Structures are given as structure tokens and as C-alpha cells.
């Protein structure tokens, strides 16, 4: 059976309310199109996992899709706050958000453990910080060889991980290059893996040492050109830094945020229509 689905089908078939979901991509290759499709299909009670929530989770949280967030840095990079994330944490709007907070090193260790199907990740981390006091998942073990106390974090095994990548072939092999963040770990930690791609090719000639996810670890592939916008896909288009700066004004207030989401996400059928709606605005 072909793994090639439309994004609408992939989300409808493989993502359910209440699941733990990781949309990864460290600044680069953030799966915005998939995030929007989750909002369009009205997914609820999600436990969202991402090192850097970024705008994509600001949108999901502001639209009431999430009950919990596991993360390590929740800002608009280089700009400031994620106002929808802040509103949920500070004021409980549109609903309270349970936080599971880590450092980047802790999240990386948790994904790596998840990908290895080990129970916990290990690091020399969280030394002297208040984070273990607010996240009881951060614990420690004594090294059996040296006696050193080392920090532990429970493995992250999302029900579904969603990535965006540059390309896949028709069999469902996926290749991504450039800044690859913790995508390989998040992908292999998950029970199901959905990938949106810029292009589907007959033969996949990945660059040496590119991150390649073989077809038998991939659940579904959807062809979504521009699927990372306003994040970027190296070799295809750049990060729209001006949009990230504009988001500060869009998301600062509840009503401007809702109006933007309704016009550009809820009122558009798919990602191509979403992108077209932004062009109209500029014209």
C-alpha cells in the first residue's frame, strides 16, 4: 500500500485527540502545514512536544488544541514572546496548559532514549537549576563506575511525530539536510511518523551523511510544497524573518490572533490556499 497520502488524509487517519504529538524541526523545516491541518481538523487534548514551540505551537495552543506541552525554549526567536503560549500559562486562555519543562540538552537526551527504546536519557545536566523542583520527571542516578550523580529524564516516545523534509521517493524513503536538529531522534522515538515534503522524486540520491529515514520507519508521506513556511526548507526557500517579526503584532491580542487564524487557516482548504491567502494580503 502506498504511503503517499494527502496531508488531510494523513492527519485524519493517523492522529487522534488526546495523543502525544511531536512536530519537530529546530527553526529549520518546521512542519507548519501539518500544524494548520491539525487545527482545521479540530484535534483536541493534545500533549504537544517540541524543543522550541515556535509559532506553530503558539497557533495550536491559542486555538485550544493542547492540554500539555513538553518543551525547552518557548519564545519567538530573536523577536520576543510567544503571546498565545504566555496567555495559556499566565491566564489559562483559551484553556490551562500543563507544562513539562526541560533544557535543550535534557530534551535531546529524552528523544535519544526514546529512539533507542531505553527507559531514560542520561546527562550531566540541570546542575544548580530550579528546573528539577518544578519538573518531577527530572531525577538522577548514581553512576555505578564513578559514583557521580547524573541527571535523568524519562524517554520521550510520541504517539506520532510529524516532520517536514526536502524530499521523499515514491516508496516513502525520506531525506533531509541542513540544520537537522533532533528530527532523527524524534522520528525514531515515535510510534508513527508522518512526513510532509517539498518534492516527491522517482529516485532519492541523498547527500552523503544526510539524515535518511528509511521507508519502513515512515508511516505516511504527504507532498506539501512550502509546508515549512514561514520556517524554511534549505535549498528551496528562506526563513521569512519579516513574518516572524509580524507575528508579534498578530498574536499579541486574542482577537487579532483569532481573526488571523480564521482568515488564513480555518477558511482555507489546504496549505496551497493558506499560502495564496497571504499573497492576496500583500497585493
Amino acid at each position: 500500500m502506498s504511503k503517499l497520502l494527502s496531508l488531510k488524509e494523513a492527519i485524519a487517519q493517523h492522529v487522534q485527540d488526546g495523543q502525544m504529538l511531536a512536530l519537530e524541526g529546530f527553526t529549520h523545516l518546521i512542519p507548519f502545514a501539518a500544524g494548520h491541518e491539525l487545527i482545521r481538523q479540530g484535534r483536541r487534548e493534545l500533549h504537544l512536544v517540541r524543543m522550541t514551540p515556535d509559532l506553530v505551537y503558539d497557533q495550536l495552543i491559542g486555538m485550544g488544541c493542547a492540554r500539555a506541552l513538553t518543551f525547552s525554549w518557548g519564545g519567538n526567536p530573536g523577536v520576543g514572546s510567544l503571546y498565545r503560549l504566555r496567555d495559556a500559562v499566565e491566564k489559562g486562555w483559551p484553556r490551562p496548559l500543563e507544562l513539562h519543562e526541560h533544557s535543550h540538552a535534557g530534551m535531546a537526551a529524552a528523544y535519544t532514549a526514546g529512539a533507542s527504546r531505553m527507559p531514560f536519557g542520561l546527562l550531566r545536566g540541570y546542575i544548580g537549576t530550579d528546573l528539577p523542583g518544578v519538573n518531577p520527571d527530572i531525577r538522577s542516578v548514581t553512576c555505578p563506575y564513578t559514583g557521580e550523580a547524573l541527571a535523568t529524564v524519562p524517554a520521550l516516545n510520541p504517539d506520532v511525530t510529524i516532520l517536514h523534509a526536502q524530499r521523499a521517493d515514491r516508496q516513502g524513503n525520506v531525506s533531509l539536510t541542513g540544520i537537522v536538529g533532533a528530527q532523527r531522534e524524534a522520528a525514531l522515538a515515535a510510534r508513527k511518523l508522518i512526513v510532509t515534503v517539498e518534492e516527491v522524486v522517482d529516485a532519492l540520491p541523498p547527500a552523503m551523511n544526510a539524515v535518511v529515514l528509511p521507508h519502513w520507519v515512515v508511516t505516511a508521506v504527504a507532498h506539501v510544497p512550502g509546508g515549512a513556511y514561514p520556517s524554511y526548507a534549505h535549498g528551496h526557500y528562506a526563513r521569512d524573518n519579516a513574518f516572524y517579526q509580524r507575528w508579534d503584532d498578530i498574536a499579541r491580542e486574542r482577537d487579532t490572533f483569532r481573526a488571523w487564524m480564521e482568515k488564513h487557516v480555518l477558511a482555507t482548504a489546504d496549505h496551497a490556499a493558506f499560502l495564496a491567502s497571504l499573497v492576496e494580503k500583500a497585493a
Partner: protein
Amino acid sequence: MSAYTPDEMMTIAASRALWNGCVCFVGIGLPSAACNLARLSHAPDIVLIYESGTIGTRPDVLPLSIGDGELAETAACVVPLPEIFTYYLQSGRIDVGFLGAAQIDRFGNLNSTVIGPYEKPKTRLPGAGGAPEIGAHAKETFVVLKATPRSFVPRLDFCTTPGYLGGHGERARTTARGGGPRLVITDVGVLRPSPESQELTLTALYEGGTVEAARAAIGWPLAVAENLEQIAPPTDTELATLRALNARTRAAHSQPVRLPF
């Protein structure tokens, strides 16, 4: 000498602290500006590492995010993110971790998590990112932060990143590998830890700066070194390089992005 702003002076002072060949883990914002200014002026062979996995990067414009494409395209290599934190940072291969924060206390501990109580914050800040382990394991940490009584506080609302903890050798008794915050650059002067207590002490002032102005900007009774150094004002080359970098950056970040379809 042309006129300059306190922000420019602070960024230039921060850049001067870096040396040629230094391996530097770069935070976004002011640290990124200072590190790239160093690379474009006196430290052309500095190795800049951003937590997105870009090593030895030489961006022509400052990145807005920690993972702009510019950082990858101009890097010596790009490695997966878990590697940056394990093979490069925890292993002790970083000379300087360059950080910002929302709050700092007298022992150089940093808060970038919340203002107010964690469970009911007045202001939810972005959080830790790479900072706790950068602060623990870089051989030394530099902090750059504008001085106000709201940012230089007697007591942090939350300790995100360890400095010298309670001072008096407490950090040295932990398993942190690095030396801690050896340098805090502000817009009113430079602070360094005292050798005995590790309390941050004013050790240098800018041209025209006074101890009184520094004390007014710091939220605890500020210790002052006996022999205060005077920091030289920006050179014409430093100012021109910084301003050109900022101008290129502004132009690049306002460029419309064209999708190829």
C-alpha cells in the same frame, strides 16, 4: 571619535573579551552581535557555535533565530543537535559560553524562565534552551545584559542557569565542569567575580561612567574593586564594523521571501 550609544559600547566591550581562535558557544541577541563583531574585527579565526548545530559559522548578517539558513550555509560543518550538547558541550570542548538573561543575581546565577512564581507567573519568559548546560560546562561564561534594578536583582525569581550558586566555593563542589561567569558586561561597566566569595564586583567603567551610576543600576549593594579600570571608547573601525553589520542585518530581515512555486 564619533558619538556612540551605551548599547554600542556594551556590544563592543563584549566583543573585545573574545580572542582569536576562541571556541565560543553563542546565545542569540546581544551575544550573537558581540561574537560576530569580534570575528569581523580582531578575532577572524574565532569558532562560533550556535546550538542549532552549526560549527565555525561565519554569517554575513546576524541571524534572527538560532537556526537561520545563513548559519548553516557559512558553517564549517553542521551536526545534529544532540551532538552539540553531548560531544561538544558536556565533553568540555567549549572555551566560552556567551549568554544573555532576564535576571542575574550577585553570584552570576541567571533567570530566563519566569518573573513571579513558577505556577502563577507574572511574566512567562521563554525558558532554559541550552543555557543551563552552557553555564555548567563551558570553560567560562560571559554574560551581556543591560543593567537595571529589575534585571540585576538580590534574589532571582527562578534559577535557570547556574553561576556561582551561593558563592564561597559552592559551584566548585558541584559536578559542573566549567568555571562559571567570569565576566558580566553591562551598559554601566564590567563586573567580575571576587576570587574569594565569587560575588560580582564592579571592575571597570566606560568613559564618562561613574560608580554612582553603576550602583543606581544594580539592585543589590554593589561591591567595587579598589583599582577600577577604564574601558577605552569604541574605535572608529569597531563602530563602523558594528553599524555596517546591523545595517546589513536589518536589510536582510526585511527582505520578502519568495516561494519557488
